[in-house]
């Protein structure tokens, strides 16, 4: 996009206007609690000092309008753009304009010297504050023996095996691993680092057991635990093997 607005004078023009595209950081504002904004800003800046130094930002008010509208109807609400501007400047950001928002809000922004930028072309469907819901756990039940060479991995949940895990087989889960037969292969629980994960089995004959990357190999297993029903969990960075309570 090259937009040339030139005056064809004989003299060289003192300036030239050109269109250009910029990548700008957009700050989606969800609520107007000044102290909350300040706290989160400080946190963000702390995470990446230097990143926000003189970073031009556009303040998007779409989420704010929705929230406000839902609570008390679409009414004008006090929005101190000067204060907001100062706050962002203090943390190194340079507000260059606003986007979205009710006409009243846009008017207030203009008065504070912040231009209103056109709405984003991509209609952001429901840009609400990110909800802090846990992803649903997905457990898996295996009702056949796990043979040598087979590998079963459950992401985001527990692995429950109703049969035997043969030598040379590998069973892995982000959560706990339950084996209701003999565990003769490798069992790895808490694969993504969950130190709270446990391993349970009816007969411990494993080649390797691991919780959150802390492992014991067959050689390190105590002979008193071998062939017994056990539960295994982590104490510090060491797997602890206990008799399974009946």
């Amino acid at each position: 996009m090259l937009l040339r607005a030139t005056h064809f004078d004989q003299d060289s023009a003192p300036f030239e206007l050109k269109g250009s595209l910029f990548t700008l950081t957009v700050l989606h504002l969800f609520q107007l609690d000044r102290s909350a904004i300040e706290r989160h800003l400080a946190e963000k800046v702390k995470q990446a000092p230097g990143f926000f130094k003189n970073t031009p930002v556009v303040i998007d008010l779409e989420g704010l309008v929705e929230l406000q509208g839902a609570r008390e109807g679409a009414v004008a609400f006090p929005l101190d753009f000067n204060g907001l501007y100062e706050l962002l400047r203090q943390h190194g950001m340079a507000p260059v304009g606003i986007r979205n928002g009710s006409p009243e809000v846009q008017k207030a922004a203009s008065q504070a010297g912040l231009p209103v930028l056109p709405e984003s072309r991509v209609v952001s469907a429901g840009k609400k504050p990110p909800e802090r819901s846990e992803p649903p756990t997905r457990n898996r039940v295996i009702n056949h023996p796990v043979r040598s060479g087979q590998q079963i991995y459950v992401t985001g949940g527990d692995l429950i095996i109703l049969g035997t895990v043969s030598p040379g087989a590998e069973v892995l889960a982000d959560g706990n691993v339950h084996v209701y037969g003999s565990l003769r292969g490798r069992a790895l629980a808490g694969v993504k680092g969950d130190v709270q994960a446990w391993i349970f089995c009816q007969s411990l004959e494993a080649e390797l057991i691991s919780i959150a990357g802390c492992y014991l190999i067959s050689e390190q297993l105590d002979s008193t635990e071998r062939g017994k029903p056990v539960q295994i969990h982590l104490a510090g960075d060491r797997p602890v093997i206990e008799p399974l309570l009946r």
Partner: protein
Amino acid sequence: MATIIVVTSGKGGVGKTTTSASFATGLAQRGHRTAVIDFDVGLRNLDLIMGCERRVVYDFVNVINGEATLNQALIRDKRVENLHILPASQTRDKEALTQEGVERVLNELRESFEYIVCDSPAGIEKGALMALYFADEALVVTNPEVSSVRDSDRILGILASRSRRSEHGDPPVKEHLVLARYAPDRADRGDMLSVEDVLEILGIPLLGVIPESQAVLQSSNSGVPVILESGSEAGAAYSDLVDRFLGKSLPHRFITPQKKGFLKRLFGGG
């Protein structure tokens, strides 16, 4: 409807071909039209064990490639009626076994045979995968030693995950354990895994225990399936195995050490 049975093991040298030859012969002896196919392309052995190596003209790969008809390649057994052998090619490799080709040959065999026995090569590569892919039932041949048992465990996993039955969501391949080269006295001494040890690890039904026997080597070298050596323990064990496969309930023989007689003990014979 014909039943396709794969004889497989993972490990080599455990007795797959010996078992294939005797099992197929036993089925045919009992009046069932049986074909036995050698899937070990490049390392052809079944023809030797069956004693038909001098009559091989065309082979399995020729049929797959359309260079010969099935009837031209099938070798009729001279000793037992109802028994046909489809030999492997010795000059090709396993890549010659295409899934479409194998399926076409098996479908054609289905029309005229009751049982199709597939003698698998060792390993878990193309040849072994093709041999087991279309199977309805499997004879898993294992020796009483840990490496053989582990390899059988591996092949059981492949049967459960990579056969056509598993891919199509049909009822799983029916698994049978054949414990070959078993020496009861050595198992008793703890030199070998016992029948119970193997069953505990593999967890599939036991179809037969074949005792370690000189007769197996002798009959292999003379090209006679050991099941035809009815005086031998191994031959009798294979006979029982076939009967059990066909639904008879027979106790397992040759799994406990034989008691030595008084004189034998005295003079240390045996």
